[in-house]
């Protein structure tokens, strides 16, 4: 018990004393995950919209596929892209393995199905008259899409936060594709795994606290916006 309290005290000390290594790890985590979500969200929303509003052969199959991909473990995504990006793999010439770019690719693959599936659910919940009213009042397809997105903005925001929550806390893909290199690809989850295996709990707890705080902020925002959406609807 004493050792746990000591480790927790040290964790707070590390956080508030401005430990460069610790804050570097946090910065890498946020940089990689924010880049991944920003790159994924645009195309994912377009795919979600197309699955909701367009009728084409194979639509239902695609919806089922994205829902299935939701449950693929991060480590399997990591393994798949490891094989693709490794020297002998088809994308080996790009020399991306063990880089932040590789981590971004892995995290995009992780959050994309989630963004599509949840985005699709958000668009499905939208009133179909919103699109038709926008179009009949002269809105271009792009502006009508913006109008519908505005109508379901709380659902889409929930999608974004859930996707971000998934990738910032995942360890499997980041470990395999980033390689856990200090000051380069070591992010919060991989650092926690490493420090814990070394028996250095203070840094692990400090980083865990950051993740907990982030999870709390994301969930609180989600509940706030969802509540606001219900009031408006």
């Amino acid at each position, binding site marked *: 018990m004493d050792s746990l309290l000591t480790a927790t005290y040290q964790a707070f000390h590390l956080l508030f004393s401005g430990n460069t290594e610790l804050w570097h790890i946090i910065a890498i985590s946020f940089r990689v995950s924010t880049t991944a979500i920003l790159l994924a969200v645009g195309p994912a929303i377009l795919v979600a919209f197309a699955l909701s509003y367009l009728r084409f052969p194979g639509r239902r199959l695609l919806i089922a596929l994205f829902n299935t991909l939701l449950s693929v473990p991060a480590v399997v995504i990591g393994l798949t892209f490891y094989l693709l990006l490794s020297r002998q793999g088809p994308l080996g010439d790009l020399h991306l393995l063990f880089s932040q770019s590789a981590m971004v690719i892995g995290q995009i693959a992780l959050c994309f199905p989630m963004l599509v599936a949840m985005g699709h659910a958000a668009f499905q919940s939208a009133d179909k*008259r919103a699109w*038709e009213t926008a*179009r*009949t*009042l002269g809105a271009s397809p792009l502006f009508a899409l913006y109008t519908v997105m*505005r109508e379901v903005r709380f659902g889409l925001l929930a999608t974004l936060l859930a996707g971000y929550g998934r990738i910032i806390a995942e360890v499997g893909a980041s470990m395999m594709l980033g390689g856990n290199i200090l000051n380069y690809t070591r992010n919060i989850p991989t650092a926690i795994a490493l420090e814990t295996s070394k028996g250095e709990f203070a840094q692990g707890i400090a980083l865990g606290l950051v993740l907990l705080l982030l999870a709390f902020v994301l969930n609180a925002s989600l509940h706030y916006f969802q509540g606001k959406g219900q009031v408006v609807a």
Partner: protein
Amino acid sequence: MSHIVFSDIHKAFGKRQILKGAEIRLQTGQCFLLSGPNGSGKSTLQRICAGLEKPDKGWIDIGMGARSWRKQRHVLQTSCVYLHQQPFMFDGSVRQNLAYPKTLIKSKEERKARIEIALHWAGLEPIADCWAKTLSGGERQRVALARAWLRSPRYMLLDEPTNNLDDDAKQRTLSLLQSLKAQGIALLIASHEAEHFLPVADGWFELSAGKLVNKIPSQTQNDNVVTLSKNRLVGV
């Protein structure tokens, strides 16, 4: 005066054939009624006319020869406005909803002035800053009409515009429709209580077995009905 002729319109949903060669002609400044039982295809026909729903087959002539719906879709979308049975209100105030339609007016002041005119025209001034989603059915209908009017359409397709409205709201809607017609806008009103619109109507069609047939009111007790003679039914 301009017109659109829709001919040989076919539409099926699954195995159910809704429209089987329906034909209709819309003329600016004239108002036609469209009646028929539930599920007869009134809304579908209006949505096809507005360029929102693709027919399985159909020809559209805007005065330059009959062309396919797909080729005329843009023309339909720019000249027609479709009003849902229960109009959709965007998130925002009534004023913000009226600011939505795309118009050719570039000047911000002129656009604002037009919105004020629309508010006055539809009697919406007292609720101009109210949240549009919280309005009653009659108020929504008037917002939808004013919003459509701001788009300056040549053809307006209204789906059950007085459904579930009280008598006062029905009367206000009717007077707005009369005003729209007087401004030269063509109206196609789908309603199961079409008799209510006879004072403003130039023709009455009934959708039966997927086709449009001219319908002449059998009841002539209502004075308004007398004004609707067979000669005024100009549908194809």
